[in-house]
């Protein structure tokens, strides 16, 4: 939305502006252009010539009003601050339970569960070298495991985010636990955080378990099931995080993510779902990098574009569908292993960018996130960072406090144009599914990652402690926290015993039903996943079955 230079009525503007320009050039002779991560050239000064607000109502409006550039709710953080949702997961379900209850006791209203990497790979704990188990997340392979993890956790009143890629076994286990505790499924709130299989396919092979068509099928079944049985659950979170971490620029990330959202919405519509019913539950998940103003402009532009897409392109009539609800996580990519305490400063800046962007929920990284799974102390500092910004720095007192800044508004317009160009390129390639399938997105990301790396090499981009201001000694690297090997061994042994002792008939029947559903257009695969979880089928068995029936996903890697 580049606006033409404004004819300003201000008397003396031209002369003052010209004077400044010549004074500036005298002081800063031969200056090289400064660019942000998305490649937009940043000027030394912005003025009413760059943004004069004459399209205020069309481009910005008021908070809670279309196109929501200034925020999706009328009161924003002044009414209700963002949800503090720290991702946690380590060790056995019992280890997780100890930590999650401490968080709840400290007043948290939302929790999350990060499964062990073996879970992301779609295998059970008895198929992995035990030394790796639980080092990056919690080992949850059965309904029993989830029951132990959520012991004493008030399901039904607390919001639960599951880092749960297709076929969403963690949610299935949670529903099994709810049934055991006679908790109405309709009261369960939370989000399937890793449902965006396209982003996994592109950027995070860790999650990639099923073939692309298989993942597409399971996601649609999942959304359909959740809309039917779990009215307060967000079945889809469209994730920009993986792509930005893999090297996409902030503008590319927003463009790709919105293109994915368009793809998912169109798939749902094609399936016969009601667009208003589905879009109401779409949420987004982003990395917040340290490129402060650029991130703020990225989110403001993203809100504006999504509102337009949802209303005009996808035809949603309910304003709730136009709202761009997003969770932000401060980017671990910006954190350094060198001088790790510096990361506290980095996370503060990232979190400020997120808050000033008007996010709905946030995870702040612990300063040792670049080195290890955060310890309890470092996790506490991460939460404290949010509290300090909210309560001491008063960042919530004013809604969209940077709105109206010549720079931020101009940058928002420029980011919007960049993002729109990315979306147009993906559209031209036939949509996000196709663009990912043929590797277009991966190629674009690879080029951006390499370009960024080259900027680091040449020193054009600086990272303190990495390519400048290095110090000899890093005295403060905290030791990595590893799960107790004896406890993990017992966990695996109990799991093996469970598999021996459960009703093999029920397991066989449930797996059979799952396989049949995978091959039938009329049945819902996720519904069978939920039933299988209750029958005692393990995570790895369900993923294995669907891999056989729907195909294993070969990662597409553009070297």
């Amino acid at each position, binding site marked *: 939305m580049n606006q033409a230079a404004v004819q300003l009525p201000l008397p003396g503007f031209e002369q003052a502006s010209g004077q400044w320009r010549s004074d500036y050039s005298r002081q800063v002779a031969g200056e090289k252009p400064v660019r942000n991560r998305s490649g937009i050239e940043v000027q030394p000064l912005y003025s009413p010539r760059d943004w004069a607000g004459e399209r205020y109502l069309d481009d910005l409006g008021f908070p809670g009003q279309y196109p929501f550039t200034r925020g999706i709710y009328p009161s924003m953080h002044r009414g209700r601050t963002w949800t503090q949702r720290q991702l946690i997961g380590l060790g056995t379900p019992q280890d997780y339970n100890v930590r999650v209850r401490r968080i709840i006791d400290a007043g948290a209203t939302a929790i999350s569960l990060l499964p062990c990497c073996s879970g992301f790979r779609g295998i059970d704990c008895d198929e992995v070298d035990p030394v790796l188990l639980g080092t990056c997340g919690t080992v949850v392979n059965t309904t029993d495991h989830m029951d132990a993890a959520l012991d004493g956790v008030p399901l039904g009143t607390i919001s639960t985010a599951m880092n749960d890629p297709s076929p969403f076994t963690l949610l299935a286990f949670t529903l099994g636990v709810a049934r055991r505790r006679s908790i109405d499924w309709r009261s369960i709130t939370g989000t399937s955080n890793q449902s965006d299989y396209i982003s996994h396919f592109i950027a995070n092979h860790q999650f990639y378990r099923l*073939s692309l068509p298989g993942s597409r099928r399971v996601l649609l079944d999942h959304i359909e099931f959740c809309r039917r049985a779990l009215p307060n659950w967000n079945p889809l979170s469209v994730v920009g995080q993986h792509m930005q971490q893999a090297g996409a620029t902030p503008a590319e990330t927003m463009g790709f993510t919105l293109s994915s959202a368009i793809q998912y919405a169109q798939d749902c519509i094609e399936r016969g779902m009601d667009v208003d019913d589905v879009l109401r539950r779409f949420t987004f998940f982003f990395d917040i990098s340290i490129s402060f103003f650029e991130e703020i402009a990225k989110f403001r532009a993203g809100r504006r574009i999504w509102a337009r897409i949802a209303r005009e392109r996808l035809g949603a009539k309910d304003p709730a569908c136009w709202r761009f609800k997003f969770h932000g996580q401060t980017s671990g990519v910006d954190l350094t292993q060198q001088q790790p305490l510096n990361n506290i400063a980095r996370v503060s800046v990232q979190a400020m960018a997120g808050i000033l962007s008007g996010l709905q929920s946030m995870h702040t990284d612990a300063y040792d996130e670049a080195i290890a799974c955060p310890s309890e102390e470092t996790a506490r500092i991460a939460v404290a960072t949010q509290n300090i910004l909210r309560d001491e720095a008063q960042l919530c007192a004013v809604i969209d406090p940077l709105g109206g800044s010549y720079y931020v508004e101009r940058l928002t317009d420029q980011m919007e144009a960049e993002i729109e160009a990315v979306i147009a390129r993906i559209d031209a390639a036939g949509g996000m599914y196709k663009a990912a399938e*043929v590797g277009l997105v991966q190629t674009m990301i690879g080029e951006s990652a390499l370009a960024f790396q080259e900027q680091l090499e040449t020193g054009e981009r600086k990272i303190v402690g990495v390519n400048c201001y290095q110090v000899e000694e890093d005295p403060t690297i905290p030791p990595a926290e590893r799960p107790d090997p004896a406890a993990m061994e017992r966990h695996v042994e109990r799991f093996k015993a469970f598999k021996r002792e459960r009703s093999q008939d029920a397991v066989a029947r449930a797996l059979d039903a799952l396989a049949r559903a995978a091959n039938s257009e009329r049945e819902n695969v996720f519904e069978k996943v939920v039933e299988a979880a209750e029958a005692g089928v393990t995570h790895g068995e369900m993923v294995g079955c669907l891999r056989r029936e729907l*195909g294993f996903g*070969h*990662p*597409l*890697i553009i*070297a």
Partner: protein
Amino acid sequence: MAPSPSPIPLAQRLRAGDPRAVARAISLMEEGGSAAAALHAAILPATGRALTIGFTGPPGAGKSTLVDAFVAELRKSGRTVGVVAVDPSSPLSGGAVLGDRIRMGRHTDDPGVFIRSIASRGHLGGLSRSIHHVVDVLDAAGRDAIVIETVGAGQSEVEIVDVAAVRIVVNAPGLGDDVQAIKAGILEIASILVVNKADLPLAPRTVRQLKAMLSLRREGEADVPVLETIASEDRGVAELLAAVDACATLRPEDAAARRRTRIRRLVAEGAAGEMRRRILAWDDAAFLETLARAARGEIDIDTAARAAMEAQAGGVPLPVAVPQKADRRAG
């Protein structure tokens, strides 16, 4: 540098199928030199048994995925397999990222499949110079089938004719201007044409176009089947193997003839290389004078080259006065 392995025991080990010996022998072939030549001579009698199958076609056609599925099909039929995957080298650095493994993931635990990635080293988009020798190593090692996958971007794909008994040209719908992506010349070498990604909407059109192009071929040429596959779902792959087997058994005399041609080409290539090496290292006074005269334009390059070659080959000293340009024109 460690001393080169002695070729005779290495040959014995590789003929026994020892994978480490096979791998080392391939490296030795890529390195070249007299040890490689001796090894090649030692294993040559044990070659000629394997079924050699070449896959070529434009980038994006899904060759690696198809090869992965095809190898699985070969394994199902009980055959051991060697795969040679050729990727281009960077013209600038000479380095390469050999990424065919990315789509050939399902054979990582199967000793019946031996995969070797080869950089084309200056043969832009085509076959590496040493590919013949590499294939011979796998052949001598007792692999029943050898699959050669090449990037179909340059002109030297035609070399695959010499290496592979059965040549499969892979195409996919929607690659630029469809069959235009298949270069002229490639169709002539194809034993089988494959349209991969046959579930794409434009697939029938691509099949029609390929059949139309085939119909322009001369009469009497062997029929070239056009098959459809969806490699990512293993569909059409069993049919492809059946077609390959049919093609291989069709004309045994072809195999013998191709083998003779191949040996001849190897000899020619070897001779050219040897001559090049000798002439580059030659500093005989008479030869230097020949070069000087060529530099002054008194004789042309071809004449100097022929004279040098003959002198080297026959051990005959260079004539004191080579024919002058003017003389030649007059003659």
